[in-house]
């Protein structure tokens, strides 16, 4: 199917779209995308549908293929297999300078020799739009991103956050069907980043733009996205809403990459796993498995009062939380996050404790390695 789909024409693609009702409203469709550099496969079987107005994040460590996927969608690189379509139309034959796709680069890539207004008007100028219309469109979009007063500045005179807004305005003025953002916050300092993330998400949502956003920062992904695609070694491990990815990670890799996690060995029988604290969780697996729980899903009680006990080896008060590390009887370190207000006093290192799961159904069960 992979090979034949890539060769389908525009009309045939439309037929395929009708056959799959879920994709009827998607603006961007990526099907079984593959990309190799020499003998190295950097992307394989990547399939994503992005709906109108949706923000999807490609999340993964460096080298996982997320930027490669972005560059293939933008048209900077040609995939070796698979299909990309925008509004149901095959995008692969469309040259890079005609794709209805706007890219915000990690470095922003503003033209240093043009003023803010010239930067923003560049795309319209390349399209041969009359000067007066360019000026009007530029003024409008600069007002939208609150940079109206900076139209005649050079990019070097702007702060990092302002430069980012120019980069965003520069592509939005062209009304792209898909907005691609490559780690747009990595050049900003941590304090500014949080505010900019919310601002950018609100702007994209307000304008109803379909966006794909690349990051290696899981927190950023959880804040920005409607859905997150977690990538690993050129493949998409899971694509789901942020809460879903966090609460029900599809694989151990996802659980490990998104948020903090604890893993321990268990065994599955008769469709269920009996966890260390005696509670059970359902599974389709049998035999040796790995159980996973988030630190905040584990409750600590002083003293030995249950089957799952251990000793506190580290405690760190972090704002409203206390992060503990508990060495259990079977020699595993378990991370626990407790709300400070829940506890009368912070447990000290060396204290004997009993662990239990708050909600066993939020424990994930994965095959053993």
């Amino acid at each position, binding site marked *: 199917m992979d090979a034949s789909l890539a060769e389908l024409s525009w009309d045939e693609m439309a037929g395929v779209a009708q056959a799959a009702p879920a994709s009827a409203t998607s603006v961007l469709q990526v099907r079984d995308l593959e990309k190799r550099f020499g003998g190295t496969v950097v992307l394989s079987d990547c399939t994503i549908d992005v709906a109108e107005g949706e923000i999807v994040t490609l999340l993964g460590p460096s080298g996982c293929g997320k930027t490669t996927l972005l560059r293939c969608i933008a048209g900077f690189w040609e995939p070796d297999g698979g299909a990309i379509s925008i509004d149901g139309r095959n995008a692969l034959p469309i040259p890079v300078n005609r794709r209805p796709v706007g890219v915000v680069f990690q470095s922003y890539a503003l*033209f240093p020799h043009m003023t803010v207004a010239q930067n923003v008007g560049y*795309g319209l100028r390349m399209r041969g739009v009359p000067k007066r219309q360019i000026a009007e469109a530029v003024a409008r979009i600069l007002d939208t991103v609150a940079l109206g007063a900076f139209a005649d500045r050079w990019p070097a005179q702007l702060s990092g956050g302002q430069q980012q807004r120019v980069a965003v305005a520069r592509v939005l003025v062209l009304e792209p069907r898909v907005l691609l953002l490559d780690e747009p916050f990595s050049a900003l300092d941590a304090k500014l980043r949080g505010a900019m993330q919310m601002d950018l998400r609100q702007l994209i949502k307000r304008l109803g733009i379909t966006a794909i956003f690349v990051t290696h920062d899981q927190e950023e992904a959880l804040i920005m996205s409607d859905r997150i695609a977690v990538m690993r070694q050129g493949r998409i491990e899971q694509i789901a809403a942020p809460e879903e990815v966090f609460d029900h990670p599809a694989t151990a890799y996802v659980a490990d990459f998104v948020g903090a996690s604890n893993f321990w060995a268990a065994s599955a029988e008769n469709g269920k796993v009996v966890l260390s604290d005696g509670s059970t969780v359902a599974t389709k697996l049998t035999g040796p498995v790995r159980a996973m729980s988030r630190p905040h899903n584990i409750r600590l009680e002083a003293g030995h009062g249950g089957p799952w006990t251990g000793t506190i080896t580290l405690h760190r008060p972090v704002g409203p939380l206390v992060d503990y590390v508990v060495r259990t009887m079977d020699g595993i370190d378990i991370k626990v996050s407790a709300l400070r207000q829940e506890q009368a006093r912070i447990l000290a290192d060396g204290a004997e404790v009993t662990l239990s799961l708050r909600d066993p159904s939020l424990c994930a069960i994965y095959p053993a390695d």
Partner: protein
Amino acid sequence: MIASAQQNPLTRLGSATMDKLLSGRGVWPAVPALIALTVVAVIPFGILLSLGFTDILVNRGAISWNGFTLDFLTNALTDTLYWTTFRRSMTLALTTTALCFLFGYPVAYLFLVGGAWTRRLILILTIAPLLTSGIVRTYAWLVILGGRGVVNGTLMQLGVIDQPLRIVNTHWAVLIGMAQIHLPVMILPLIAVLARQDRSIEEASANLGASRLGTLRHVILPMSAPGIGTGTALVFTLSYTTFVVPQLLGGGNYLNAATMIYEQVVFSLEWSKGAVSSLILMLTCLVVLAAIAMVTNHLTRWTRAHDA
């Protein structure tokens, strides 16, 4: 060591001066260079200039000074030979500069878009000619362009021409030689500027709808303005004041400003004329350099934006 410095006030003064020269602010670190420049350039040039504005009479071995005169300058400015010679020098220098830009920019662009090996090759090929002297390279052109040279030999072998073309000892030989010899001086500043560019800027231009040509015209070319300014100024200065290439490839009849000064000073021993010619050469060169600097300044005002 500190004790001895305190004992001898002269040593103390010396080491204080040394400190200023090595790590001082403002003009201090440039003092040694300025002294050297004054001794080897400013003073000799001053002496030469003074010859151009003093009336010297040599009468039977006796030299008499007759004071200040503008005669040499007015003579030069009313002499049509001067005008044609300087005009020729100016045309030659401007044409050479234009040729160097036309041939040099594509090389620098290739450096920008090329891979690691292309870049290495371009650098080696650009710098290698600089390792030999200009005279050697000029002689190489004599061999290539001469009556029995590579160019004529090939053309005659192919039957394109029957008689060898007369290239050496013409304006064309001088122009070809100058363009080749000064090409690296244009390419290197261009490469220095282009290699610093963020490559995603070109991708951004393409993403915003520009064709390759559009990106070159509206983004890469304007962004290389600092390099174009430097390269243009260097090539112009070198070719406007050049002596070796016109002398050898022009065959001794080819008169540009530098060869004219050479003849005035060495053959006809008219030092006053030579002095005035040198002054005109220097001033006209400065005028063009000032024009280049003004245009470049305007085109690169964005590079000083953080100052504003």
